[in-house]
């Protein structure tokens, strides 16, 4: 179950590489949205602009995956809770670790296939 969900993540990423502007991505889409032209032009532009690190993009997507999204919201809730109080001993380290542990696992599956 979980496996297929992460496979989907992979697929969307690959599709986005070839024909961008289909879904607005927060980080990966930045460069591509600015151009707005056809796919070939954008690919050339991308080469000129320098390489884009695949890890933050994957991490972002993995954070949205059904498996990790709950942990992410727990982390964000914790952040808001702690930041809203002036005097608290609580930290969100464990929440961050739980979320990142999940997202890391998902990133590790596909990251190296995008590197040389």
């Amino acid at each position, binding site marked *: 179950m979980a496996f297929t969900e992460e496979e989907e993540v992979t697929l969307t990423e690959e599709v986005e590489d070839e024909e961008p502007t289909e879904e607005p991505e927060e980080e990966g889409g930045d460069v591509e949205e600015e151009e707005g032209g056809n796919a070939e032009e954008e690919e050339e532009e991308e080469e000129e602009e320098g*390489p884009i690190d695949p890890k933050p993009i994957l991490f972002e997507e993995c954070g949205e995956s059904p498996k990790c999204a709950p942990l992410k919201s727990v982390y964000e809730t914790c952040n808001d809770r*702690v930041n809203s109080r002036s005097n608290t001993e609580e*930290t969100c380290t464990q929440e961050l670790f739980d979320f990142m542990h999940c997202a890391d*696992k998902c990133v590790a599956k596909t990251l190296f296939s995008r590197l*040389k």
Partner: protein
Amino acid sequence: MLRVEADDQLHPPHYPWSHDGILSSLDHASIRRGYQVYKEVCSACHSLDQIAFRNLVGVSHTEEEAKALAESVNIEDGPNEDGEMFLRPGKLSDYFPPPYKNDEEARAANNGALPPDLSLMNKARHGGEDYMFSLLTGYCDPPAGITVREGLSYNPYFTGGAIGMPQQLFDDMLEYEDGTPATVSQLAKDVSVFLKWCTEPYYDDKKRMFMKAFLIISFLTGISWYYKRHKWSVLKTRKLAYKPPVK
């Protein structure tokens, strides 16, 4: 202070390294790129004192290339006939020159933090190359409630979270000679593979020896099994029969 302690550090995930397989060698193109990363980035602060230029020959560089690399650094040698130390161009047999003369100088230059020698770093930290890759790419904002002292950076993979080394790798900070896009992940991957090789220069030999030993030993085991069965066949197939004397 009373607080619920979180784990000390975040454990790195396992990445599918190309040298993971039982018979897989290290990626030598990656070692060569990783050397470049070490030389241009890490070596400003980290020594690598177990590796000599000659070690690169046949691994990541040709002999001529390694000689040229060695000659590009000055090594202190001596004493000469006047009893004085002097500088000379490096030779293949020289070890990589350290960035600082001693630990005290290294601490003084780095805000009190000592950049560790990287020669055996792969074995010196849990997780090995997974840890190094995660650490180098894992800098992020500290979670709420954690303040990092000035001069330190937050990295969830580092024990305690506060690390003296700020983020070092950035997209496109150097140009690979083979044209590989120099993204942060790529740089981190290559330098992790390079340091894996530094820790275990015998890594590929180890795998080859395993294959040879496995083949030869299994062949010999087969032979001795057959030989034993063969020699014992007479004994094992004999029949003991009791024939009562006929009255």
